[in-house]
């Protein structure tokens, strides 16, 4: 396998520290052959890449056309006129004449942000506290409790689904319309830890040198002081991963909102998007415009923080 070495490509995933020799025997370096190989590689990798990105581009292109133009063949890749009104129509779908903030779509977005925001806060607090107990406090029973953390990762959620639903039903948190109470089932669990993130943060905390704790101890800090003044500030990258994945999970979640939310005023984007489906017809152009708005924050986050996304997966092994 003849390989060309580009220094700027060096930290591809994470700095994994395997120094590699890219030396190619001099006899095999035919300039033409190498150029052809490079072109071939770009065609292969780029061609498959195009298959992966095409559906997203198609979603955007469809969102800028009329329903009639969408299905024509051969397709116009660049439309001769852009139907941007799909976006305003999608935004005000279901209540025409609404102002920017009173539109259904604005409400779905706001609701999703509220749920995701509280989940991020709750997960960060509960998981970092629990992870500290496993990484920094020497207590009897720690190994046993950590084993419990690991074993809950393996438990399929359907096993606990129904009793948890019944608990929230008995707490009158289902079918109520007050925002904070109505979102209880979707928010409260975040404040009680998540095994994957506890594990991730614990692994990260273990890499912070203990000398720093001792220095803080000499300054008179207790465990709470070490936690807030040493561990948390040094763990920003790991906390960012937890925050990002939690946000992502909540932005995309369908199952939770579907089960726990009845009142349309509490609907999230996942539920709201389904309102675009008529009895047997689809307003495809509007649906695609709304979908573009739905995925836009994720695409932007992905572009600016791709490394954090990738770290999140390699650190937790989470499968969407």
């Amino acid at each position: 396998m003849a390989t060309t070495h580009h220094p700027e490509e060096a930290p591809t995933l994470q700095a994994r520290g395997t120094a590699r020799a890219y030396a190619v025997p001099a006899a095999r370096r035919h300039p033409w052959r190498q150029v052809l190989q490079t072109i071939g590689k770009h065609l292969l990798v780029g061609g498959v890449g195009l298959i992966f990105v095409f559906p997203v581009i198609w979603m955007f292109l469809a969102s800028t056309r009329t329903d009639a133009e969408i299905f024509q063949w051969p397709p116009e890749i660049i439309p001769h006129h852009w139907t941007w009104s799909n976006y305003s129509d999608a935004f005000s779908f279901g209540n025409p004449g609404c102002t920017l903030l009173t539109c259904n779509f604005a409400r779905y977005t706001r609701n999703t942000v509220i749920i995701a925001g509280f989940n991020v806060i709750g997960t960060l607090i509960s998981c970092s506290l629990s992870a500290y107990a496993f990484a920094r406090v020497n207590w009897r029973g720690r190994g046993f409790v950590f084993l419990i953390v690991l074993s809950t990762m393996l438990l399929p959620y359907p096993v606990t689904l129904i009793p948890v639903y019944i608990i929230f039903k008995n707490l009158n948190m289902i079918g109520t319309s007050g925002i904070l109470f109505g979102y209880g089932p979707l928010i409260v669990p975040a404040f009680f830890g998540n095994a994957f993130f506890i594990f991730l943060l614990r692994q990260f905390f273990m890499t912070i040198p203990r000398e720093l704790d001792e220095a803080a101890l000499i300054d008179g800090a207790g465990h709470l002081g070490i936690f807030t003044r040493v561990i948390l500030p040094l763990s920003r990258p790991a906390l960012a991963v937890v925050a990002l994945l939690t946000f992502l999970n909540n932005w995309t979640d369908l199952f939770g909102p579907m089960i726990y939310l009845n009142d349309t005023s509490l609907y999230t984007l996942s539920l709201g998007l389904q309102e675009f489906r008529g009895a047997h017809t689809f307003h495809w152009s509007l649906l695609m415009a709304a979908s573009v708005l739905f995925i836009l924050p994720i695409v932007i986050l992905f572009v600016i923080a791709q490394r954090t996304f990738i770290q999140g997966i390699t650190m937790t092994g989470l499968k969407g």
Partner: protein
Amino acid sequence: MQTIRPLGLTRSERHNILVGLAFCAPFLLGFLGFTLYPMAASFYYSFTHFDGLNPPRWIGLNNYNFLFTQDDEFKQALSNTAYMVVAGVPAQLLAAFVTALLLNVKIRGMAIYRSFYLLPAFLPIVPVAYLWQFMFNSENGIVNLALGAVGLPQPGWFIDPNWSKPGLVLLFMWTIGTTTIIYLAALQDVPEHLYEAAELDGAGALRRMWHVTVPMISPATLFNLITIMIATFQLFGIAFVVSNSGSYDVGEPQGSLNFYLLYLWKTAFSYLRFGYASAMAWILFLIIMFFTLILLYGSRRWVYYEGEAR
């Protein structure tokens, strides 16, 4: 003089236990309230008739008995799910492996290519499901228009029970990015000197792949295999949106997308048969445990851990 040591612990040991418990109190309380109690409760419910309104009524093994002997929809959901595990899991694993190999090629501009491959995995499921229905629209979706233009047959995809599951497999191959990432990390950990040694021994590209790459990344293969399998047994969101032809008719066309969790969801939240659904949840749990253990046990034959004596 004798110090008093309750439970045989010193003062500082007792103090540390209290501190440890205090810090992991969020997890411990959550474990008791949202895992341990619900597990016990759903196990109990699975032997009862329970509608969520009246107290559960003990009916012994009736739920399990009925599931295995008389419930045809359960059989349908099981076989649909089995299809996705048998056909979909290897397809996804292969897609992840191939995409990771492509992303491991050393060329300029890889950061851009990589974002193309990985983005679909992070997109929200509801718009993804609609996008797929849109593109695989039987009459005039872009996929069928393109197939028709080159003279290939145009399947009905999500309105044809024979093509709905293959359509879904294609979708999951498109959103494979997270599995690709795990493979890519493993590929980048394969020491270069192994390839050089193999090349010196005269091994061609295919032999290097089979004798160096495949064994060296076999731990990642095992991990990916298990996570994809578990996710496939619990397949729900995308299938729910794609197969929903309105109201509560999920699993269409003709029940071909009626997967295990879709049926469980229907049983619990639209028929309000919580006891029956709990029995289904426990059966699913046992199925997943069984196949995970089988894979782990069988993996000794084909997973290679570096540094392990063989």
